[in-house]
């Protein structure tokens, strides 16, 4: 069994492939960030990617929505291959939502405008409909009263929740999270993680790059450990935290647990 399909339960193995990466390699100049990555993410799966800094985890998920361009290998998202064709890229991006470490909210727009901008101009929804959906999403993430404020007036945890709502407004099939809580103060981390757990329970396909082990243990279907651009080990949470196979994995876990 290839490393990509490791640790899949029978039930999960029967699900559709949402993201397939085969032999993905990427260089930044002379530095190799991804050295042949093979990964399969199934429908409704929550995959958590761990690893030391510089291991290529952020690069990998940024390749999935073409914020970075991979040089070798192939990436297939929900049956659409990622090539240089702009139409494929646009199709993929409309199905994949991303949440950034630095939130990246638009500071000159109110929270409501932040969330409704893309649905109105990309999905061509009517403003009234988009705003109703936005208020629904704000309630789901717990901050409906902030709708008319500017991002600069919100706390970090609130901003990240708005960022999640903004991505959800496009009704994506897959959500990518690039260290969503790394820039937050400790007391705000849990409010964001709660939203993510809620999303996972609702059946969203998620790839989460994070250092939050509690979250990984509780919610992840599979964990992926990367180092120096390689996928070292793939396993279920129980396997990972109780009895990892690889030496490098054991070393990493001993440093952070």
């Amino acid at each position: 069994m290839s490393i990509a399909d490791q640790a899949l339960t029978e039930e999960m193995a029967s699900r559709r492939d949402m993201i397939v990466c085969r032999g993905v390699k990427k260089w930044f100049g002379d530095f190799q960030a991804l050295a042949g990555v093979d990964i399969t993410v199934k429908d409704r799966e929550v995959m958590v990617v761990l690893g030391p800094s510089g291991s290529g985890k952020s690069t990998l998920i940024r390749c999935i929505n073409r914020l970075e361009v991979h040089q070798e290998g192939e990436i297939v998202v929900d049956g659409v291959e990622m090539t240089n064709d702009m139409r494929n890229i646009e199709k993929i991006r409309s199905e994949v939502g991303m949440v950034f470490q630095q939130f990246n909210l638009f500071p000159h727009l109110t929270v409501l405008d932040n969330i409704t901008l893309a649905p109105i101009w990309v999905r061509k929804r009517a403003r009234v409909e988009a705003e109703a959906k936005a208020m629904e999403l704000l309630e789901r993430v717990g901050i409906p009263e902030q709708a008319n404020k500017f991002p600069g007036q919100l706390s970090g945890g609130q901003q990240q929740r708005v960022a999640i709502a903004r991505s959800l407004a496009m009704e994506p099939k897959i959500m990518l999270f690039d260290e969503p809580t790394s820039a937050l103060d400790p007391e705000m981390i849990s409010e964001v993680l709660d939203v993510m757990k809620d999303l996972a329970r609702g059946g969203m396909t998620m790839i989460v790059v994070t250092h939050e082990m509690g979250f990984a243990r509780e919610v992840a279907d599979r964990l992926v450990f990367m180092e120096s651009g390689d996928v070292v080990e793939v396993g279920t949470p129980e396997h990972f935290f109780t009895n990892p196979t690889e030496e490098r994995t054991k070393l990493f876990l001993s440093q952070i647990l």
Partner: protein
Amino acid sequence: MSEVTLPAAQRAPEAESVSPGRWVRENLFSSVSNVIQTVFFSLVLLGLLRWVLGQIFSEEANWTSVATNMRLLFTYNYPTEQFVRIWFAAGALFLAVGASFAAWNLNPMVTVRRIGVAVVGTGAVSLVVALISPDTTPSAVRTGFLAVGIGLVVLALAVLKVVPEPHRRQVPFIGMLAGVAVLVCGVLWFFPFGDYGFADGAPTAESGTIDSSTSLPVTVMFLIMIGTYLAGRALARVIDLGWLRRTMIGWWVIGPAFVVFLVLRDPEFDWGYVLAVDVPMGAAFAVGGAVLLYLLAKPSRSDLARVIGALLVALALFHWVAAFFGWYPMLQKARFSFALVAVAVLLAPTFAGERAARLRFAGGWFGFMVLFHWLLTGINTPSTLDIAAPPFLGGFVLTVSIAYYVMLASFPLGVLLSLARTSKMPIFRVLATTYIEVVRGVPLITVLFFFSIMLPLFLPGGMGISDLAAVFAGYTVFSAAYMAENIRGGLQSVRRGQYEAADALGLTTVQRTAFIVLPQALRVSIPNLVGQAIATFKETSLIAIVGGFDLLRIANSTIPNQPDFLGQKRPALFFISLVYFVVAYSMSRASRNLEERLQEGQAR
């Protein structure tokens, strides 16, 4: 859960108001070196002031040269019988200003105390002037300044004592508007400036107040502005402010052209030509274009729209080449309209959508075409874009008109240039960089010469360009290059994460630039852009070299050449420096207000 009592919220302690005496002691005389510096610089400043006052009040300075030529300075040779047009134009301007104030709900927080302090300061300056002006000053002037100074100081101090809590009470905006109006009109109606003018080629002078043919219309202007402001505020409770703001923006972009070309200029319509050629052509482009855009704005037809748009652009370019070689005749207006259709079709995919959105897009095009053709027809030249400068546009009106149009036109051009320069596509980058570097490397006067003298030689037969159009084009080309660099600075300040977030949401490049990147870039560039605008306003004085009669030329050559005021430059130059300063400073302050408003709630 146990109740937790929190301490009652405390108010921040009030900042101590510092008495003037204490402020002076602490800031000006606190140490030996401070004392020396205060004394030294005070002497220098007072000496400078005394010299300036000496220039203003000396006996050689003949201020009648300015007073008599007021009309000349402001409107040059506009025939007096048609002055009602000038006042109509000014009225339209004041109306728009009042409506804009109302639409954007301008309400700067000014306390009674700040106004009181400003008035005391003005009074103090007046007293200083009265005390240190040199002996050549007529005693009437000296006592006048003394009286005004004492009066202002006493009045202000009395008001500050009487009004309770002056540092808290806010003066509403309408109060300030009314105050300014009363001040200006009061001075115009009651101050004994004297009545100066020309009669039969000789200057006349009468004592008394300014002629009511000036004071009355100005009073009416202010009443219009205040009335519009009040009406606007009342209306704001009922109608959607957003609609009012968009209307005002539309007015400020199009209105001045309407005012200058249709009101101030007396068009001699050739109705036959208008009905036979202009109206059908305008209708064809408006209706045909609207139908085409409506059909192409369907999301499923995006690719088709792009293809057709590219074809139209190629065709539009071909027209210009054909014109250059004279292959077939085509009206200038048609060539421009064609190019505009091409641009609109290229934009159709971005504005594609459901039926309502498509109707709005097509409707917008229709309205725009109607307006465009109406304005051009108003200038009424059959085959060329010939914005003829009537010989009676000059002076302050000319300066302001040119400056306004140049700022209006060079801004979008500057935005496009800066986007091209930072584009990933090499052709745009190379073209834009060449343009910007060439234009920046050349003095403004050279650009003006090129457009007004050399360009007409290059144009194909049948195409002409009037003086005013040439000057306008030259200034715009020049100013756009500088604006582009300013905006590029702003573009570089937008964080990469913003681009990534926009891409991740699926926004196209055009949408990302228009909605995310440009708003943030422009906010940062405002101080530089306004500085550029102020420079443009002052550079309009170079029109003199290519034959225009702007404010500076009139003050510098026309007035000193009049037989009654031979060689008297200084009073007129002093006066126009004041005019330039007032306008430039207003722009500066407006830009600061704008920046403050844009920062609301956006602290990074």
